[in-house]
């Protein structure tokens, strides 16, 4: 992992000490979770909400994609005070 590139995208600056500690943690965590590479099949779809069948009692599916609709989520969940 190119940690400096990740830091750049994530827009966080860290001290060398903190960077070393976090890098160590991240490597351990990714190692723990690496078994997930073995799973195959269809991915969970945000647009279908929390049901594998489209149900009438679920009024509207989840209206956002976690990765592409940040602006909409911002507007929906955190109301920016008018004076800013």
């Amino acid at each position, binding site marked *: 992992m190119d940690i400096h590139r990740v830091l750049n995208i994530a827009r*966080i600056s860290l001290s060398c000490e903190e960077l070393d500690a976090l890098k160590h943690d991240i490597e351990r965590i990714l190692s723990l979770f690496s078994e997930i590479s073995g*799973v195959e099949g269809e991915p969970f779809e945000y647009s279908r909400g929390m049901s594998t069948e489209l149900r009438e009692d679920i009024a509207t599916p989840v209206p956002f994609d976690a*990765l592409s609709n940040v602006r909409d989520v911002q507007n929906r969940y955190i109301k920016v005070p008018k004076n800013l």
Partner: protein
Amino acid sequence: MIFMEDVYARLKCGELLPDENLADKMDVIEKRESTLNAFISIFDKISIPDDGILNGVVVGVKDNFAVRGKRMTCGSKMLENYVPDYNATVVERLMSEGALIVGKNNMDEFACGSSGETSYFGPTRNPINPDYVPGGSSSGSAAAVASGMVDVSVASDTGGSIRNPACFCGVVGIKPSYGLVSRYGLVDLAMSMDCPGVLARDAFGVALVMDVINGRDEKDQTTVSKLKFLEKLNSFNPDGVRIGVCEDFLNVDPKIRKITERTVGFFERKGAEVVNFEFSYFKYALSSYYICVYAEFASSMQKFDGLKYGYATGEFGLFERVSRTRAEALGREVKRRILLGTFVSMKEYADKWYTKALIARRRIQVELEAVLKDVDFIVLPTMPILPFRLGERVDDPVKMYMCDVLTVLPNLAGLPAISFPAGDVGGFKVGVQLVGRMFDDPFLVSAVRFFEKEGGV
């Protein structure tokens, strides 16, 4: 412990007046807050409404819900002085029914934690023994309910954040079906799994508050029609009920396993049928959950940049200002999750990590739904371990994540789950979870009520 049902009965018959109940709770807060650190803000000048279903009921609200004119910190330096100018829907509904909201409960920073130790405002302590953690991330909510500072608390659960502290503090906590309670005004951890829910000292308290806060909200397009909890509270009949038990879920502390098996035995003796099942995708639950959370969390945290609101560092160029603000205002676990989320969703790595996590999530969802076609609910421990001492795990994220292995499953599939005290070990209560079908939430609460009334403990 004074049960919510008793307090509510006294309020309704006029034996206990709302201002007397409020004074009683404020007295407990004054005595215990300095030790427990269950609140980030305690309100003064609380007006007492004349009526409403919750008239006189004292409520705590987790500090990631917006309450108009009161600061909302999310347990972070980033929002230390942020004051929203609107109410979350759950807060609006509580207020409209006469609830007395006394303050904002302490929590792990941005709900990133399983022990109540990562708040910028200091750790919460377990009311049963202050040397031990109360669980997290809704640490202050559970500690406040368990210690009698409030009658009930409203909190959020993304991977166990209500059930974990409910278990460690010995109270009842529900994570409702996804979409049953509006998330409008809740600061998100992972928006596809966040669920507002309730902690109370008994099933009655959970049902009482769920009746008020659940149901369709135009401001949250994922919400669904209202369910009735109190109406069904005493309707549980174990005859013909099929309960699912999975051996993989019982690989926990032997004392916790014993109490879980005793709980299963209780329902079986009362007439339920026990069905053993296997769950092949359980091994992917923790990795699927955390990778999805990392990706969604890193995305949602982009808004905290020191430009629009919240903490901002000194005068620097745009990019340096954002980087420094985030470095200075966020705690280590939050940074860790943002970095991991950024990594797993990067174009060249997403197929290996994030997409795989979504595949595992779908598999888990399908498998859980299949199990729940055959059984009415699943019984499993809430936590694999007993409460631990403060500082024992907080520096080891892997050990901390392992605490969540049994609570993340319902969140991945959007299913309802409820944790309730089912036994004692060494002075601590041990929680057991029921996981049910989508929108069977009132049925689960009624099963816990049955357990309480029929002497399950």
